[in-house]
């Protein structure tokens, strides 16, 4: 085992004090000189033709600088398949459609002006479920496709299909089969920091935008495209990302409000800020997709899985975001969680007049794992095998390629399963708590852990720049959004370079000064950035040791002389001066440069800053700034075969819950929770615990309480009074988080991505525990007391 100075320690997060003290600057805090406040007028119908927009009153309101609509601005197309527009013309397709916007000198005037805009509509028939939208003669959400050709149905042209082996044959041969239908609700990411942007133009018509985004460089690309649509082809965007109060996938797309702030800024010649209030955050941002799944799985008489078939229908809402690609991630657990040779998976994504969806933490994986892991328990029961045993029989193993072509390298799934069973006292408790309405349940996960080649590149850049004092600016394209990215990158950089963590300064979030990165998503931030940091640090060390070979000896000699002056009895040792001219003889740790094997002699070591200053203050001097670009060894999924090793390594995990159900109220109480995750290697203990605890609590919210309720396309609970996320008092039970270290050779110091896994299997673990407790299987999340009570009553009748 390698011994590390900082990797695996519980170092505090560098961004925490400012955030806790209210000093960090979020988009809400930023004020630009001459800034105006933008506000959007949203649709009042789920589906209607726009007959007339009267902006005259708003324009006359003192303090209003601009009123824009789709009719007086250039058309800006946005979205994954460009079926969406920054401002809507002709027709609205969902309640949140942007029909007009204003910029005014203060937020109150902007709000008043928006109210003064009168829009005349002609309501159209709407479709609110994918099933209805697929019916013959259903009202079309989009009459034409993005190329202007007439559409005949509401199917989104993004189909996903994966086939391996022969499921039909396997079905006939299976000894046991379990089949069921499962669904999950729309849920909202619930970022504490709401969305917003400030757009402004310089006198050359280049755009500066402060934006809450996870993809600054792809956003730059999107915005440059918008500039071209505005007649500003060739002009550039600089994206600056302020402190982010949680993003959870909301920042993976660029949004209408951002383009509207750009249009308003261009029109007024002033910076324009649009920040959502909580209600807008709920109603005008995109929630997580709600798929409905039909699953059939089978196994042989020994409990070995023989096939898995899943058909899924997804409500896309009115437009298509990158969220439409989440089935490609669902495909991972569907094809490869547990060893299953025959797989069939097919999705249909359907336009409706509901709010359009986007990705959320887990990128589809929670929705995919929900039917799989609920149904695994059903199949285990059908086969008469304990669900833990059943999972052990089918567990993934190291060094195996799955039917999808995932090259599983390290795999700690069996250890995770075992850890959960032990911590929960599975043998003692499973199947034995019915009389007390207590039960235990577990569920596992597989997720990308080594980046994810979603785009053509999965790369990230790092620049390391050292100053006169040995401070190291680690300039990254990645984004800290609360997940602890800076904390991990700090320790990895310190370890790789050989400096103390306090010398590391993470600089991020500026497309003009930071190196390119594809985006902070897919749990790839730490994995890719720390790998890049190791590369950049290696280059820096090489340069530093080269400088050492020039300056070390003189420094050591002068030290020795000084010592002799102080202490005449001091004998200058006989030193091997040859070695001091050889760069390969040096090593560096804790800011000291020394000869290999002699780290501790204070007379024979030189500080990094001494060497750096010597290099700077010298004729024909030099400086140290290195760069590295890390692009993991992984593959795009082949669109024809749906195969490809999308990630350089895979994260596994198992979670388990012990619950008690109140038979009179239907309330599910979690008594304890275990989360065992194959994390490769812990980089920063505090951060990883934060990711796991946070993931679990978010996952329990998904399991028990979160639900974005709508009626005819309109959100009914756009606030935390009625949209229920868990808060501290709800977590009145222990969460045992266990990190299983499998030391993956692709990972930085062996680490895998862990940003998302914490919430992936949480809901089925709880549902399985509820089944164990009361014999009732809830198939649609959340598991509310109402549903449990109704099911208990049905069971009794």
């Amino acid at each position, binding site marked *: 085992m390698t011994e590390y100075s900082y990797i695996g320690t519980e170092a505090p997060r560098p961004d925490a004090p400012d955030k806790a003290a209210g000093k960090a600057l979020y988009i809400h805090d930023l004020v630009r000189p001459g800034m105006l406040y933008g506000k959007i007028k949203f649709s009042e119908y789920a589906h209607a033709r726009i007959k007339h927009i009267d902006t005259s009153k708003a324009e006359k309101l003192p303090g209003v600088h601009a009123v824009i609509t789709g009719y007086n601005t250039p058309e800006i197309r946005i979205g994954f398949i460009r079926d969406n527009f920054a401002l809507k013309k002709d027709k609205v397709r969902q309640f949140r459609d942007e029909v007009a916007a204003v910029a005014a000198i203060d937020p*109150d005037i902007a709000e008043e002006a928006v109210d003064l805009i009168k829009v005349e509509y002609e309501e159209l028939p709407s479709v609110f479920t994918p099933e209805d939208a697929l019916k013959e003669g259903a009202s079309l959400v989009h009459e034409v496709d993005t190329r202007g050709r007439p559409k005949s149905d509401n199917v989104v042209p993004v189909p996903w299909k994966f086939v391996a082996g022969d499921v039909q044959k396997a079905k006939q041969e299976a000894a046991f089969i379990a089949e069921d239908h499962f669904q999950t609700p729309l849920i909202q990411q619930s970022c504490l920091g709401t969305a917003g942007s400030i757009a402004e133009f310089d006198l050359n018509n280049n755009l500066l935008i402060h934006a809450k985004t996870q993809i600054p460089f792809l956003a730059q690309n999107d915005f440059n495209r918008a500039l071209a649509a505005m007649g500003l082809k060739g002009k550039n965007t600089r994206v600056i990302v302020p402190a982010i109060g949680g993003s959870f996938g909301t920042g993976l797309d660029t949004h209408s409000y951002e383009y509207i702030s750009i249009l308003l800024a261009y029109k007024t010649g002033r910076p324009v800020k649009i920040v959502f209030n909580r209600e807008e955050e709920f109603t005008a941002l995109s929630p997580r997709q709600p798929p409905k799944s039909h699953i059939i799985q089978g196994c042989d008489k020994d409990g070995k899985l023989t096939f898995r078939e899943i058909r899924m229908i997804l409500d896309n809402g009115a437009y298509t975001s990158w969220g439409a690609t989440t089935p490609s991630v669902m495909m991972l657990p569907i094809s490869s969680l547990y060893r299953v040779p025959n797989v069939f998976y097919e999705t249909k994504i359907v336009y409706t007049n509901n709010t359009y969806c986007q990705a959320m933490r887990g990128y589809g994986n929670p929705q995919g794992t929900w039917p799989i892991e609920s149904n695994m328990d059903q199949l285990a029961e059908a086969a008469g095998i304990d669900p833990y045993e059943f999972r052990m029989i089918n567990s993934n193993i190291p060094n195996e390629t799955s039917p999808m072509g995932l090259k599983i390298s390290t795999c700690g799934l069996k250890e995770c399963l075992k850890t959960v069973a032990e911590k929960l006292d599975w043998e003692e408790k499973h199947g034995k708590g019915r009389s007390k309405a207590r039960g235990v349940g577990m569920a596992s996960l597989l997720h990308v852990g080594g980046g994810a080649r979603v785009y053509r590149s999965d790369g990230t850049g790092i620049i390391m720049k050292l100053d006169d004092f040995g401070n190291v600016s680690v300039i990254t394209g990645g984004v800290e959004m609360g997940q602890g990215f800076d904390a991990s990158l700090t320790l990895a950089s310190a370890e790789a370079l050989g400096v103390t963590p306090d010398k590391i300064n993470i600089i991020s979030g500026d497309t003009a000064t930071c190196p390119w990165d594809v985006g902070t998503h897919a749990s790839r931030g730490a994995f890719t950035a720390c790998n890049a940091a190791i590369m950049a640090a290696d280059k820096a060390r090489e340069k530093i040791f080269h400088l050492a070979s020039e300056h070390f000896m003189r420094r050591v000699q002068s030290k020795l002389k000084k010592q002799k002056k102080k202490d005449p009895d001091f004998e200058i040792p006989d030193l091997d001066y040859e070695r001091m001219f050889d760069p390969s003889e040096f090593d560096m740790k804790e800011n000291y440069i020394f000869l290999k094997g002699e780290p501790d002699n204070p007379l024979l070591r030189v500080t990094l800053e001494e060497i750096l200053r010597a290099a700077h203050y010298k004729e024909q001097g030099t400086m140290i700034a290195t760069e590295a670009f890390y692009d993991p060894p992984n593959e795009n999924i082949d669109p024809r075969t749906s195969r490809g090793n999308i990630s350089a390594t895979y994260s596994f995990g198992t979670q388990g819950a012990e619950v008690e159900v109140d038979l*009179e*109220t*239907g*309330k599910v109480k979690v008594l304890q929770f275990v989360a065992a995750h194959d994390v490769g290697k812990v980089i920063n203990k505090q951060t990883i615990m934060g990711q796991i605890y946070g993931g679990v609590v978010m996952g329990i919210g998904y399991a028990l*309480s979160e639900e974005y*309720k709508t009626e005819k396309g309109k959100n*009914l*609970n756009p606030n935390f*009074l*009625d949209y*229920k*996320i*868990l*808060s501290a*008092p*709800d977590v*009145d039970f222990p969460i045992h988080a266990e990190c299983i270290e499998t030391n993956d050779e692709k990972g930085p110091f062996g680490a895998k991505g862990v940003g998302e896994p914490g919430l992936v299997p949480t809901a089925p673990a709880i549902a399985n525990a509820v089944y164990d407790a009361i014999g009732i299987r809830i198939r649609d999340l959340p598991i*509310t*007391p*109402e549903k449990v*009570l109704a099911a208990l009553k049905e069971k009794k009748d």
Partner: protein
Amino acid sequence: MKKFDYFQPETLKDAYSLIEKSNGSYIYIAGGTDLIANIKNRLIQPDALISLRRIKEISGITQNKDLTLGSMTLLRDIEKDSHIGQNYPALAQAVKILATPQIRNVATIGGNLCNSAPSADCAPPLLVLEASVTLEGPGGQRSIAIEDFFMGPGQTCMNMSEILTRIRITPPGENTGMAFLKVGRVSTDIAIVNAAACLTMEKNVCRKCRLSVGAVAPVPLRLRSVEKMIEGQEISPELLNRAGKMVEEEVKPITDVRSTSGYRRIMSGVLIKRAIEEAIRRMEQNK
């Protein structure tokens, strides 16, 4: 948000004279945790807010023969009061799980009552304690039973210029136990249903029973017929089940974004049963 004037009178008299002088619409503000939300949601658009926060005479807890709570007493101060915790545990518990510490640091008991939400958590305990409230206005002072105070969601028997000044509770006497229970979707929630019970026992027989449920009718309910059915009886599981069934029939819950009428109905019965049991348990503990 529409602009409004803001006044901070230091005495009730000053407050009344502000009202007499004002010609637009005004409204009293206590902690503002209900009111400001309503203004922001444009449910009301007053021209002026008259803050009651500086009026010392209507704030604080005093215990003489009766317990008197100034209407401007912060929920947090009630929560921390050990005398209330000891002797009025139903009220203490209601306050303890009302909203969050941040809210309780500014919200007042008077505001909770005057807002007249069917789900107001302070209402059931005060109903079973048969509290009375004092209302004062330019025209004088009156005292009424808490049961007559609530008229409907957001409506009380007060007229515009009246101020709720004090809440008075007579100690319930020996051999009495009480409890407050609430179900929400998560720990911090507006009640889907809340309930309180206060029982005076003589051995196993209930001498006096006061029951209340909230969030299941336009106003927080006193359950008189259920109380009558229980008084004079021994408390048994059968009796509790009968009580639960009666409660289910007395309530008139609605379905909304928080819950369904069916679930609320069942929960009213369950909570009343459990509140009675807990009240008796507490009384026995105090012996």
